């Protein structure tokens, strides 16, 4: 039986029993009718509606795990269609776990609804994400390999870490010219997808094509420790103060390293916040080593920290903490 129906005039949600059936009923509102969509255990759906309100449904896999459904409706419950079938489905299907008060939608402010994601119960494990991410023989150019512009520090540290990929469990991440190449066969959830025209799109940190001119970097990831090391050498096209890298270029490199780490550690997708404390400028053409750690995964968010320093750790360039929002990618429908 539903415990509570919304009290807010612009948003509402329905609650259901804590333990329920394996399938979850997702309530989505499309104008003007109300639809119910049944979801299987493996699928989830994010749908954006006209005022930016989202409906997200998740299914539970194990009865003892905490299920969550956040269902936001634009109109007050009085507008709900009075259909016995739908209300019965509502009563039977909805399951909610706490923290709904934090997800109250402010009128007029579009927000993506968070949802619980217990990595052990839902979504893909780190190992499966890594193996999908690091597909070999893709035929795509991997930019994260040494070239003539790399300084000696960067080369020697690269070789050191390459040795560790054989012995210590580190993985070198490939770097393609577009994030789309990394997620072949997957796409953003419906409602967040953007119109095509992406043939010439490039990921920001591979925007400068000349060797050594812009971002030269490689990221190594450790799946079980959930750590990353990024070797970053800014080129002359990333200049800010004369002779030194632009603060924004380091911010972008940190965001990119966070992004890859968050994706592999817990399907993190979008940046929620970045807090960077700059200490020293990075000379153009020198090596900066970024060490990223995943501090915790909580409330569908990944909390990470990063410290950028010189190879000998004598100079700290910047410290940063970042929060990423978890959002598993959907599989592309076969065409």
């Amino acid at each position, binding site marked *: 039986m539903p415990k509570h129906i919304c009290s807010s005039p612009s948003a509402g949600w329905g609650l259901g029993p804590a333990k329920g059936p394996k399938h979850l009923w997702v309530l989505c509102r499309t104008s003007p009718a109300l639809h119910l969509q049944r979801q299987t255990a493996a699928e989830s759906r994010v749908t954006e509606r006209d005022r*930016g309100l989202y409906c997200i449904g998740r299914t539970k896999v194990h009865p003892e795990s905490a299920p969550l459904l956040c269902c936001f409706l634009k109109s007050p419950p009085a507008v709900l269609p009075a259909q016995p079938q739908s209300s019965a489905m509502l009563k039977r299907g909805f399951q909610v776990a706490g923290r709904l008060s934090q997800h109250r939608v402010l009128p*007029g*402010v*579009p*927000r993506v609804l968070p949802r619980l994601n217990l990595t052990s119960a839902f979504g893909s494990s780190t190992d499966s994400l890594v193996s999908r991410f690091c597909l070999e023989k893709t035929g795509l150019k991997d930019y994260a390999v040494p070239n003539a512009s790399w300084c000696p520090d960067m080369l020697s540290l690269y070789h050191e870490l390459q040795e560790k990929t054989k012995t210590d469990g580190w993985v070198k991440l490939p770097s393609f010219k577009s*994030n*789309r190449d990394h*997620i072949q066969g997957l796409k*953003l959830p419906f409602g*967040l*997808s*953007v*119109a095509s025209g*992406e043939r010439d*799109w*490039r*990921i*920001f*940190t591979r*925007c*400068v094509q000349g060797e050594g*001119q*812009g971002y030269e970097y490689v990221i190594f990831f450790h799946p079980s420790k959930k750590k990353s090391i990024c070797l970053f050498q800014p080129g*002359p*096209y*990333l*200049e*800010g*103060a*004369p*002779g*030194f*890298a*632009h*603060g*924004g*270029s380091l*911010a*972008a*490199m*940190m*965001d*990119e390293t966070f*992004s890859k780490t968050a994706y592999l550690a817990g399907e993190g*997708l*979008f*940046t*929620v*916040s*970045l*807090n*960077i*404390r*700059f200490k*020293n*400028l990075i*000379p*153009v*053409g*020198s090596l900066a080593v970024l060490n990223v750690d995943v501090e915790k995964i909580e409330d569908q968010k990944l909390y990470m920290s990063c410290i950028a320093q010189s190879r000998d750790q004598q100079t700290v360039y910047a410290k940063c903490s970042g929060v990423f929002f978890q959002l598993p990618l959907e599989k592309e429908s076969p065409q």
Partner: protein
Amino acid sequence: MLRSGALRLCAPGVLRGPRRSAAPPTRESRPPPRSFASEVIRVDLSLPNPSWSKDMRLLFDQFMKKTEDGSWKRLPSYKYVSPQRTEVKTFFPDGKPVKEDHMPQAQLFPRSLEEGLGFEYAMFHNHVENRTVCIFQGGPYLQGASGFLHGGAIATMMDSTLGVCALTAGGVAMTANLNINFRRPIPLCSVVVINSQLDKVEGRKLFVSCNVQSVDGKTLHSKATSKKMPLCLFSLV
């Protein structure tokens, strides 16, 4: 010696982010900036070009109208940074910049990509209200998550805009802290408006903040606050 060193440091060539061709309004008593005869011909890139979308041009025209009464001013922006490195050493004695012959093509980062592919932006400053507005169109080479602008790209633009805001208030400044809250992803190739203002001055520190909104003002994409430390110790003398 120190004073003249400080004045040279505050010359436009040492700026981070877009520069101004005239001296900042707070220092009328300074000598005029050095000429850049040794540089290549400088092209002002904060002007419409074929890659600008309709939204971008409309906004640009709106702001240009506002400059007519004198309260707003469009800030020019150039690709190349003038080679004045010795002054930076005064404040960064530990920094070891690479020799000039290894970097013949140093370019200001937000201006280093070809037309339409990267950052397309123009900045406007209102000295009456003491705020800076930047209209920004992110090109296809700034992608992050598929179809959206990279978080680092908007961070770079916010840092640049905040830097200009701090520059007009307190001279050349280095970013000490940048704190960004992202609310909603920005679709690639769309236009956003970055509004920044100076919040307070505490001794040598400048606190600036900005927000990023869509063209119609209805969508708040992100907000940031930043602490800037002026490099020029004698700017208030």
